[in-house]
């Protein structure tokens, strides 16, 4: 039993921390938030050099071959820095290919993705559907030996800059479609989080060759989904950590009634609550990340617990930080709103806290009433 980062993981953490702190100062995040795609290719090239796009992808396909704990370390730092980057979307696409693709698909799509030369983006949720996990409605119509896609996907992250999409269809199949394919139209959708862009993607009679449909069936995507949940929950934990630190610093400096406001228990107890939520989120995230690497049977429950808890903490802690800051925390000029928005967006996607809690309830109720093992 050893629940801490290894030296190697500490090294990943400090490299990421220093790199991201140097790149993403407040002015830079604001510039990117106002830019067309919300991030810059030159930053991406540097991240690719650090090996981040393939961090948790198999070495066989050009990745670093590290685990989900390592990925969580990186994403916690991405959240801490509020890094505007397509790393999350392409990582999820990469995990899907690694776990569910054919060797031919891995050769053509995963290998360039792992080195950062190409990026993928999931296009899963159907317009006019609740956008909760599972139950895609887009039909995959047979067309000769291939498939034709018609319909509109929404809430697709980084779709305007991805090289290819992983499109989910009714029955749970996934298809690889180039962004430039005939019949594909990408439209930006303004979202609350300016540092991570959302798009809708229309597919009008888009033809998919048989070799571009992944062989896996729906249940095989659960391990991908739960790993994605861990990554985004790690990012939310970083957001909580950073905004808690901002609140504590401010509470030490800001004087009212002749004292630093952090001396008042209404403020200091709020900060203690922020620490509790941040540490709980971190424990849940690394517990689930470890399960992904070492104890896959417990991953579904652990990942739902982590995503549920970090979904709440990821926006409540920035919100509490805004309250500690008072008026200045409510201004555009202060950075807190960017963190709050990312935290809220993270909470809403990949199953919100309510959705994951319902899954947790299913499991714990079933376990509690199961006959005791002999």
């Amino acid at each position: 039993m050893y629940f801490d980062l290894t030296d190697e993981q500490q090294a990943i953490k400090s490299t990421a921390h220093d790199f991201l702190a140097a790149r993403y100062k407040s002015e830079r995040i604001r510039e990117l938030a106002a830019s067309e795609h919300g991030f810059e290719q030159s930053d991406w090239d540097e991240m690719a050099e650090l090996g981040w796009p393939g961090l948790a992808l198999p070495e066989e396909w050009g990745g670093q071959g590290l685990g989900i704990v390592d990925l969580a370390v990186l994403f916690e730092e991405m959240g801490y820095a509020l890094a505007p980057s397509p790393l999350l979307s392409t990582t999820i696409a990469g995990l899907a290919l690694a776990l569910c693709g054919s060797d031919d698909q891995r050769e053509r799509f995963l290998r360039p993705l792992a080195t950062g030369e190409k990026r993928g983006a999931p296009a899963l949720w159907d317009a006019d559907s609740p956008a909760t996990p599972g139950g895609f409605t887009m039909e995959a119509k047979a067309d000769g030996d291939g498939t034709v896609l018609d319909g509109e996907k929404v809430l697709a992250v980084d779709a305007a800059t991805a090289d290819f999409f992983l499109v989910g269809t009714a029955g749970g199949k996934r298809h690889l479609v180039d962004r430039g394919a005939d019949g594909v139209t990408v439209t930006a959708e303004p979202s609350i989080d300016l540092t991570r862009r959302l798009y809708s993607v229309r597919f009008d009679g888009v033809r998919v060759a048989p070799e571009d449909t992944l062989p896996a069936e729906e249940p095989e995507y659960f391990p991908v989904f739960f790993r994605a949940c861990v990554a985004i929950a790690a990012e939310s934990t970083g957001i909580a950590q950073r905004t808690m630190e901002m609140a504590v610093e401010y509470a030490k400096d800001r004087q009212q009634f002749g004292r630093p406001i952090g001396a008042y228990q209404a403020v200091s107890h709020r900060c203690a609550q922020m620490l509790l939520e941040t540490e709980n989120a971190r424990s849940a995230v690394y517990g689930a990340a470890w399960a992904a690497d070492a104890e896959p049977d417990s991953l579904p429950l652990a990942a739902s617990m982590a995503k549920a808890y970090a979904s709440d903490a990821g926006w409540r802690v920035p919100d509490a930080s805004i309250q500690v800051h008072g008026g200045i925390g409510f201004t555009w000029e202060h950075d807190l709103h960017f963190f709050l928005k990312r935290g809220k967006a993270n909470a809403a996607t990949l199953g919100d806290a309510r959705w994951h809690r319902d899954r947790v309830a299913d499991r714990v109720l079933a376990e509690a009433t199961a006959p005791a093992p002999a």
Partner: protein
Amino acid sequence: MDLSLSPSELEFRDEVRTWLEENHPGPEPESGLEEVMAFRREWQGKLHEAGWAGISWPKEYGGRGATLIEQAIFVGESARQEAPSPANVLGLAMGGPVVIAHGTDEQKQRYLEPILTAEEIWCQGFSEPESGSDLASLKTRAVKDGDEWVVTGQKVWTTFAQYAKWCMLVARTDPEAPKHKGLTYFLMDMDQPGVEAKPLVQITGEGEFNEVFMEEARIPDANVVGGVGNGWSVAITTLMNERAGLAFGAISQISNNLKRLCQLAEETRCNGGTAAEDPVMRQRIAQLHIEAETMRLNAYRGLTKTMQSGIPGPEGSLGKWQWADINQRIAELALEIEGAYAQLDRGAEHAVSNGAWQYSFLRSRANSIEGGTTDILKNIIAERVLGLPRLR
């Protein structure tokens, strides 16, 4: 990172598990405190014979010298199987470790063995009616008289004082010194005319705690622990010891209670189905499980940190706070699931689970008060973990 037990830790867990299964004496008697104490003395005797009493104590003092993780496994497994408490909880968890850390050779010789056997029960005389969270302001006076100290004052919340032979007493020996400096730690014989223990009936109707009145009670100078004037730092070690071991027992206890909560939800009719099908109840049941899991994982992280640094950090305060909060909410939710039946107490024909949740609900009110109030824990976290300024 490795959250699994090593082969030797697994082996240890299996040894504990098997021993407990074979020796578990069943549920505690419900007839009264006297019977409970007799039952627990007998249980501690069994534990001692098998070498489980004083599991954290070094071997040279009759303990087992177990590692932190082994202690965690033992406490966790005992709570999982709902084994009774030993009779001398405070002697084992605090008295012994204090004598080992600060006592003289004569004191070690005299006191340790009867703690392990439960021949002599220990109690703790720290809190006073006017000194609760601000413990260092305590007023009980000890005045030197030849080679004795004469003690006058009052203590409160003294668990099992009526059965105790020895009291870990902190008293003021130098009223002129700053409040933390003028205190001394004594071992006071409870069996003397100047000491009177009166049970304090609590909201559950039981009398776990006592008030202890001292009127010119006498303590030989040889019973000072850690030197005159060092009472505060000696007392702090005992509080650290109290907190370090508790977490893993608390975690198993919460996990048992959550299981019962789930069973209650499955068995209780609600809106044409069961409470386990009610979306609101499901959300709350799940949230409690999630928080309990974060508490468990936090405790493992804390344990790893303590193993690296040698001392438990102030982060332990988070666990105590969280434990109180989760424990209270489990009982609150259970009563909500019971609905109108929540009014019925033990002994009522239609009481749910014979009033067990009513007891938990009432008893858990003290969880955020005993052993450091949640409000004070938040202060500790704010000041010592986050580095926020002190109001005082």
